[in-house]
């Protein structure tokens, strides 16, 4: 019997097609599921995830002093702000800001500013941590790459950067200890 006549055999065809369809579906589902371990292996490994928070001891940081901590490979600027710096930051809350944010919303304790030290323009590390560094017009930080200037709250005031210096997730675990991340 000619095989090509099978198309007219309706119930047989439905049965046969269902088996092929079902098997293909199960096979494809398996293949997709098998793909996941390969993709997930490229996600951060357990040891990387474990180092995703850093503890910083703030007790050696004097008033007016700035330190740089390392978190997830990135620099974090920690500024023990003077009362003048705090006042200046709060006064500028309502200034013409590119990225409007109140100073209070950017700190947990006003005398401690914790921001990620990466310019939001193209990723350079702004100057201002050392006392001899230029700090820009607003006495915060100054990025030498393209001239972005940040104020004492880490907010962008002048230059090409679009956003304020990012504030990472952090917590005071004690009066003088923070955990970042």
């Amino acid at each position, binding site marked *: 019997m000619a095989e090509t006549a099978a198309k007219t055999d309706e119930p047989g065809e439905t049965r046969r097609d269902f*088996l092929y369809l079902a*098997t293909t579906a*199960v*096979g494809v589902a*398996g293949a997709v599921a098998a793909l996941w371990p390969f993709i997930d292996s490229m996600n951060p490994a357990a040891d990387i995830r*474990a180092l995703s928070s850093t503890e910083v001891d703030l007790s050696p940081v004097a008033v007016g002093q700035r330190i740089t901590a390392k978190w997830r490979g990135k620099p974090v600027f920690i500024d023990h702000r003077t009362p003048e710096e705090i006042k200046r930051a709060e006064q500028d809350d309502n200034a013409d800001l590119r990225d409007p944010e109140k100073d209070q919303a950017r700190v947990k304790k006003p005398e401690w500013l914790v921001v990620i030290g990466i310019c939001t323009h193209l990723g350079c590390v702004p100057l201002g941590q050392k006392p001899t560094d230029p700090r820009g017009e607003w006495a915060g930080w100054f990025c030498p790459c393209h001239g972005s200037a940040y104020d004492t709250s880490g907010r962008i005031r002048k230059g090409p950067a679009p956003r304020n210096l990012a504030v990472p997730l952090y917590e005071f675990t004690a009066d003088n200890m923070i955990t970042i991340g």
Partner: protein
Amino acid sequence: MRALRQISLAAALAALFAAQAAAEEVPAPDWSFTGIFGTYDKAAARRGFEVYKNVCSACHSLNLVYYRNLQQIGYSEDEVKTIAAERQVTDGPNDQGEMFQRPARPTDRFVPPFANDVLARLANNGALPPDLSVIVKARKGGADYIFDLLNGFVDLPEDFTVPDGMFYNAAFPGYAIAMPPALSDGAVTYADQTPATVPQMAQDVTTFLNWAAEPELDARKKLGLRTMMFLVLLTAMLYAVKRKVWSKLH
């Protein structure tokens, strides 16, 4: 009378020998983690950790394990922090350029007993106690062998002499091992109050060491079962397809 005494003496000696033989032959336990459905007995693994910490870690490092890994066998985050903090770790340099000591954190690896191999040998008669992170996989016989070794420090048979500084072990190839018998009844007081006999401690520490060597075992067997079941189903369907396709041929 004399005959009776001789017989009873012989019987007593025989009983003693039998007891000795029984003590020498502790059969390897049925490990909870062998077989396709095997999983780690976490309580045993924790007891094993207590044995490692209180006995073995004096000489043997566990360099590939992080303190945070202990959460996998049932310790809480706080318990792990406490366990880690018991040991000091060298860190630095600090702002003065000096290296300093600080308590270990969960993200640190297990602190080794000796700073380097030279110090390890000096403290152990020239022998180097091996790192135990993968010891179960690095020895033929695996967990059974490690268990037999720990139970193998039996009395020296008459016809065997052991070189100076070494010890007789019934399971060790060559029978003379540089490691002194580390386990004795009651050497550890278990937190869960299980009686700490030598076979019990040997079993628990072997469970712990198998976990240290194969921490992925539980996940591996679980995924394995699911994968095999899926593949059996899929292969059966593929067979049906093959038969259906080939039936066209006659």
